[in-house]
């Protein structure tokens, strides 16, 4: 028994190249679900479409009276950046749902019994959700354009703007992965996942300028990441005059702030999620 340990090799780690292949295989597996069950994609699209219609037609008339919004060339130009961020962040809840469903079905047990990188399962989940979010974002861009959205900064800025919103949603899917692995059932994960989302999305500049909020709420809304990212996306897609009228910083500095939030969230929640995944006790 004691001499045995001498002949046992040191713990093998899964190499980076192999981890990338495992991540790809699991991403494809998860993405296939959206392709084979298109109703999932439709469901994910319907909700931001309803938000778009409600905000445009129910609140749009009133919101357009706000000076900065008028300057932006109508509410649709203010709203679409917010909708892109909202859609992407709400979509991140897919990570919590997908992982808890896999846990319930025993799929995570199978993955955890294979000689693969532990991060591959989580990365494969978040990448597949990023792919789905991208499809939904493109649909929203198309719809927005039909409703009169005209990004002012040119194609490059528009692509950067959409990409930034998607990246933020991607970062948030690591938060949701951690929430899912901590709560363990799809029902609890959904409830817990939406809990931070509603205050973050609504107490932000996503749909409305924060200036009309009470001072304490405005102070929170101005510094929290969803406002930062929505403002960055907005600054990239509205003209200079509207940006100044809305009191937004210059695009470059907003983009940098948004990227810092994105990196910060992944750096904190990524390892946390992997740790929770390793310790699933069932």
């Amino acid at each position, binding site marked *: 028994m004691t001499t*045995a*340990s001498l002949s046992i090799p040191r*713990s*093998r780690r899964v190499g980076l190249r192999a981890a990338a292949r495992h991540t790809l295989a699991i991403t494809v597996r998860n993405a296939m679900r959206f392709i084979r069950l298109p109703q999932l994609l439709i469901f994910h699209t319907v909700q931001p479409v309803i938000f778009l219609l409600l905000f445009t037609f129910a609140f749009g008339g009133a919101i357009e009276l706000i000076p900065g919004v008028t300057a932006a060339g109508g509410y649709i130009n203010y709203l679409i950046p917010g909708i892109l961020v909202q859609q992407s962040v709400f979509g991140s809840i897919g990570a919590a749902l997908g992982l808890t469903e896999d846990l319930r079905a025993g*799929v995570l047990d*199978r993955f955890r019994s*294979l000689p693969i990188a532990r991060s591959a399962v989580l990365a494969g989940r978040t990448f597949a959700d990023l792919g789905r979010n991208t499809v939904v974002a493109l649909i929203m861009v198309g719809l927005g354009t039909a409703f009169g959205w005209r990004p002012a900064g040119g194609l490059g800025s528009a692509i950067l703007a959409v990409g930034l919103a998607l990246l933020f949603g991607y970062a948030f899917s690591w938060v949701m992965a951690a929430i899912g692995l901590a709560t363990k059932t799809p029902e609890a994960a959904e409830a817990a996942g939406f809990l931070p989302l509603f205050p973050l999305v609504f107490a932000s500049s996503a749909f409305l300028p924060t200036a009309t909020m009470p001072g304490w709420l405005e102070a929170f809304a101005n510094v929290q990441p969803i406002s930062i990212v929505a403002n960055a996306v907005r600054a990239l897609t509205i003209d200079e005059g509207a940006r100044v009228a809305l009191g937004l910083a210059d695009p470059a500095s907003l983009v940098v702030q948004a990227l810092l939030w994105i990196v910060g969230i992944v750096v904190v929640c990524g390892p946390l999620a992997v740790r929770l995944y390793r310790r*699933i006790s069932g």
Partner: protein
Amino acid sequence: MWSSSHAVRVRDVVKTFGKVTALDGVSLEFEEGMVYALLGPNGAGKTTLIRVLTTLIEPDSGTVEVAGVDAAKDPVGVRAAIGLAGQFAAVDDYLTGRENLRMVGKLYNLSSKEARRRADEVLERIHLTEASDRQVGTYSGGMRRRLDIAASLVGRPRILFLDEPTTGVDPRSRLDLWHLIEELVRDGTTVLLTTQYLEEADQLSDRIGVIDRGRLVTEGTADELKAALGGDMIELTVEEAAVAEAAEAVRAVIDGPVEIEMPVIRVAAPNGADSLTAVVKALDARDVHPIDLSLRRPTLDEVFLALTGEGPSGVRDRAA
């Protein structure tokens, strides 16, 4: 000293979940090339032990060696040597059977081409080739189980762990699964399986460990366990008027006490089915027509009763 021929070597493994002691000092070892069955009721600790052996959870204390690899020091090494089919068929409904297996192949670092070939090979082995291009959502429960076992075979495991492979499937699928497991064993795969059925453990395994309340109660071959229990019983029911004649016929072919509880006759069947055949012939010769005649295996309850002097915890809890 250490030997690679040990499939599993577990010493004093303890695992608690909060206040519940799932494994209370389990020690167990068996060699490669054999089938080991863990027999026990619900909640006995079977699944927890499988989860410890497959590196899904770490024990609180004790040592675990699987395929000669220390699970605490080199879990990835253990994972490379094993296959696991858990209690739920962990396959994706929206993928075809072949796609499910190809994905697992890629997770074993096979190229696309190798993964496809390996999937075909395994599908053939589990007799699912025909259904392989259908989405798994259309499969029966038994087919899903077979596909799940197939997924655990993709990595050519040295040791296969099957957690209650036949629980919840219909009797026909159970037989199919038994045949499949027997084929795998014939091809040289070492298997550790868990079951709640003595009959299943008897049918499939070389060695049986009886587990209850997180402890290994006893261990032995099916024959040893049966011997401890007095083996199979023949139960014969005849018209009351014919009981004496029937008892005479039974005594003529079987040594041992014949228990009569009007109008049922019970006797040990030392040679199992052969004893039954002998009884049938003897009855026939005397023109005695049984109303009912059966060869009865000891039930799990009787195993526990005989081994521990009390019923299995899980079964008793369920009955309560």
